[in-house]
């Protein structure tokens, strides 16, 4: 019978990060996934905390906050490891805990984040003379004029120019950024030639949708080397090339580290002996199969990914190990009617509480399973979307859970 050192349950950002960190630590890792995880839908930017100085703000979080259990040292190490992993797959990320970096969104606002793809880092945008915003004929959901109009609010003194390139993408279906990125892989010259017609100088910026390939940095390098102006990618609607690049970078890292990835493998329950998990049960269309390991990492996500489900009100459950789930009790406390207000949504604080080893605990603080570590979006205690810490909590908890 095969026994892995570590089984990671969940193929999202936290699951990939945990599998990568454990494998990098010399462990034999199996990764069980169900669905492809949300990275292809994500911007690729990793929010750690919305603050001018996230590292300082992390020191001030409340007792129940996952960051309190993870510790600043591990968060910092996780951020560095994340950048290492992506670099090894030729995907370049920039960033640090002490500041946030601006990126341009698909509607032309600036979003600030701690770790961002180098291709999106808009720090230098403020130093440019002229900003070209370029849309692509046939590419849906990208409007240069709207982006330029909104960016003008940030940079009123700059000259904006919009342009539309025909890259011969049309044919068959509505073209998404993913399609464009796929088609341009190996055919970057048509984009480079189109962008050259703008006659942008080294003092200028060119903003384009995220279409520079679906893997690593090679498409970007091919275009960048031919232009004098600095080129910036925006975020986009899903399927999102920067998220796909990040997913592929992780998969490449995991494959070369010998991690076995088992797709379509829905874990339905654990096999436990006292305070120890010895296996997890995967249910397929006809029977069950037990996967065994010495250590388990639960990275199944929160409400949005089925890591926590609530079939009846006031009774959220964690479906695999039936771990206690903490939540704001009572309908009046559950949600904030003003979706875009400056207050968090209480229901988003729903999740599992852990000790400092990220072992799940009950209401009395007692550890339930000593070799099970809970990481990522299923951790409770904070509205991660509101405080913009979801990515940071995922990579940092996963890193700590994996190297413990």
């Amino acid at each position, binding site marked *: 019978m095969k026994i892995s050192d570590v089984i990671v349950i969940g193929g999202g950002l936290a699951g990939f990060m945990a599998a990568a960190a454990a494998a990098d630590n010399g462990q034999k890792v199996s990764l069980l996934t169900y669905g492809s995880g949300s990275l292809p839908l994500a911007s690729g930017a990793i929010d750690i905390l919305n603050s001018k100085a996230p590292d300082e703000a992390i020191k001030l979080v409340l007792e129940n906050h996952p960051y309190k259990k993870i510790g600043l040292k591990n968060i910092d190490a996780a951020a560095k490891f994340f950048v290492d992993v992506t670099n090894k797959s030729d995907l370049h990320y920039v960033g640090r805990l002490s500041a946030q970096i601006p990126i341009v969104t698909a509607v032309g606002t600036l979003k600030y984040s701690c770790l961002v793809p180098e291709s999106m880092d808009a720090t230098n945008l403020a130093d440019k003379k002229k900003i070209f915003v370029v849309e692509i004929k046939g590419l849906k959901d990208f409007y240069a004029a709207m982006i330029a109009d909104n960016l003008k609010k940030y940079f009123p003194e700059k000259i904006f120019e919009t342009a539309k390139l025909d890259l011969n993408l049309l044919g*068959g279906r509505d073209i998404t950024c993913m399609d464009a990125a796929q088609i341009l892989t190996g055919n970057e010259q048509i984009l480079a030639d189109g962008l050259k017609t703008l006659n942008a100088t080294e003092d200028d910026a060119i903003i384009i949708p995220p279409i520079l390939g679906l893997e690593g940095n090679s498409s970007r390098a091919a275009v960048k080397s031919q232009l004098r102006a600095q080129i910036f990618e925006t975020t986009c609607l899903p399927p999102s090339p920067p998220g796909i690049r990040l997913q592929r970078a992780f998969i490449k890292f995991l494959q070369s580290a010998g991690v076995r990835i088992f797709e379509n*493998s829905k874990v339905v329950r654990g096999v436990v002996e006292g305070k120890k998990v010895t296996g997890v049960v995967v249910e397929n269309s006809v029977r069950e199969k037990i996967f065994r390991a010495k250590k388990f990492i639960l990275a199944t996500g929160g409400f949005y990914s089925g890591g926590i489900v609530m079939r009846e009100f006031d009774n959220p459950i964690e479906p695999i190990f039936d771990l206690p789930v903490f939540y704001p009790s009572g309908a009046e406390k559950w949600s904030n009617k003003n979706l875009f207000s400056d207050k968090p949504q209480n229901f988003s604080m729903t999740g599992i509480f852990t000790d400092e080893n990220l072992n799940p605990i009950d209401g009395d603080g007692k550890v339930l399973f000593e070799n099970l570590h809970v990481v990522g979006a299923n951790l409770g205690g904070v509205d991660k979307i509101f405080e913009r810490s979801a990515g940071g909590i995922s990579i940092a908890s996963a890193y700590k859970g994996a190297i413990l």
Partner: protein
Amino acid sequence: MSDKTQAIFTGDRCLSCTSCMANCPVMAAIKDYRGPKLVGPAHGRMHFSQEDVEATLEFCSNCKSCDRACPSGVAVSTLNMLKRAEFYKTHPHTQAEDMIAHGERAGKMVRKIPFGATFANIGMSIGKALNIFDKLGLAGERNMPAYASDPFKEFFPRIKQTAADKKVVLFTGCYINDNEPHVGEAFVKVMNANGYEVLIDKEFNCCGSPLVVTGYLDEAKQHADNNAARILEWKKKNIPVVTPCTSCSLMLKEEYHELFGEEKFHEAAQNVFDAFEFLEILQERGEFNDNLKPINQKFLYHVPCHLKSQAIGLPAANILEEAGAKVQTADAGCCGISGNYGFRKDKYEISMKIGAKLFERVKKKDFDKVISDCGTCRMQIHHGSGIKPCHPIEILAAAYG
């Protein structure tokens, strides 16, 4: 299990998240296909209205990458196949489609003629040389799979087995029966070594996979009804049905129920096992015969899409590794042939484009042998890289000496 897994009830779970699009190998290869999300669940909400034909439905290869990518359990590819069947209710099949869907029928015809296999193989090489396949609408670049001189079911009685109390029924599938009987032979040897006598059941039909993907759903239903009834007969006798073909096992275990939704298909499915899944269960029970010659070879393992969909882990890799082999997964995605898809003239290029990454990986030749559980995957790898793979059961059979 309830009818939750019948495909037509899963479409409404779609959140339009686009995960399936990000993982569809056909979309990555061509611009014409509108993609699994739009063609499957989105268009499926039109409830199969006859006038409302989705023009790009033909591009789906039924590799099931979309199903595996879906976080909400939508049976995307099966929705596509159901709609393809609707389409062919009002549109005629071409001669090429008739041919590639009915490999079993052709195989039986060939066997009725003395030296039929030889003539058929010569005929196919002549046909290829004369460009006849191309004119019919088949991929002229490919060799049609050659017929073995004796189909497996014919020479099976000549295989010497010791009678045993423990028995399994081998579901050969068409490819092993007609084209690669040595895989069936290897299976018998492995099962014998593990104390099982192998039976075959001549009443079994083709699993129906080529019929489903070509829009012959009514015929596929007849096959499903017959096969499920046979499987349930064997179930009554406590004799499992085992197959080394991963597309057959997926069809028998999962797709019958997804397509047709009858409870009997679930009941039958419980008696069906992939060959290495079965061996791994023996191993977990401590009943696996590990008296093997050490396998000191390095394998590149192309895991078929239809094995990934079964969620049974990688039993072949585990068993070969325990016998000393080094198994490296190819991790290069779908091979592109997807059953009879790559045999269509108009899909050949797409199929080769999808497989390009795998061919490149295989051509690195940093291994002793390529292994894969699926017959058409093996054909595609051979065609695309010039390197001939084998079924992992052949490796195991050889190790039993």
